[in-house]
């Protein structure tokens, strides 16, 4: 499944889309050693993303502690990780979560 194809990934449907193959950077995380990791998403499970860094190493990052920045075409989209929880096949069929900051 290629991800940069028509129909395009838009910021509206990034929560339901396949994430494997996108470029990603971690902006904030509760674990300070995870901040600033840049790479490409290789695998996805219910709670984690496996990111391969540009120097070849693979890092397993839990989804609900970090804020990710994905690259779609020429724009960047910042997404809070807790919205992406769920296996990719479950997220496809309409699992939209509502979170609030208070």
């Amino acid at each position, binding site marked *: 499944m290629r991800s940069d194809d028509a129909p395009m990934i838009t*910021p509206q449907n990034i929560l339901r889309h396949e994430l494997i193959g996108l470029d990603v950077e971690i902006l904030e995380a509760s674990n300070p050693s995870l901040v600033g990791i840049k790479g490409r998403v290789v695998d996805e499970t219910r709670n984690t993303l496996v990111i391969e860094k540009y120097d070849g190493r693979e890092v397993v990052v839990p989804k609900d502690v970090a804020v990710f920045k994905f690259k779609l075409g020429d724009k*960047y*989209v*910042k*997404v809070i990780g807790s*919205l992406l929880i769920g296996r990719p096949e479950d997220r496809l069929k309409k699992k939209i979560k509502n979170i*609030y*900051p208070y």
Partner: protein
Amino acid sequence: MENPVDINHIFEEEGIKLLKELGWYGSIVVQYSDNYSKEIFDKVKEYGEKIGLKIYTGVKIRCESPRELIKQVKRFRNRIDVILVEGGNLKINRQALELHDVDILSTPELNRRDSGIDHVLAKLGSTYRVAIELNFKQLLIRKNLYERARLLWAFRRNMKLAKKFDTPVVLSSGAESIYDIKSPYDLRSFLNTLTGDPLYSKTVMELPYKIAEYRAYLRRENVVRYGVEVVEE
């Protein structure tokens, strides 16, 4: 207490000056949905900028049936920062607590003998994040001393349920003229006398700021839903 924000019906310059002098950071100016006019909001925003008080807009919806409530909420959602619903009728209370578009439910005990909220409704408010408002103006309107005591009993019961189920709670002065404006530290000590927990009253006073900032954040152009944002680089 950082950035206390009040909810009231003050539209004149003298009132806004007094609010700034007492120490409020901002104010949510509320109009009723029956006679709603946009010019008043523009005038109040002008006075606020001149004096240095942050103004957010709000609308209080009054209606008879739950279906009419859904229609009115859809009408106002994209133009206004904060939406309040006037409670009192059990069906309207329930419908307002189930819509996540509504921010605050005011006066659930208006025109009722009991307190207005039970544990089922408190749980609903907690999952959909709708706040319960304790309106101070109702206390000043009642002249009969037993009515005032009954109102304080309703406040205490709603606060106890909301604390147990983690529902957000908001205390507002509901001022309509210059004689009703109170200072934020006074309202905080009033909450301290109702429950014996000073830390809980601090979180209650800080909540309107968080609600108004959340709604203002959602109205920005590059935000799609909460947590998703388009960033240029």
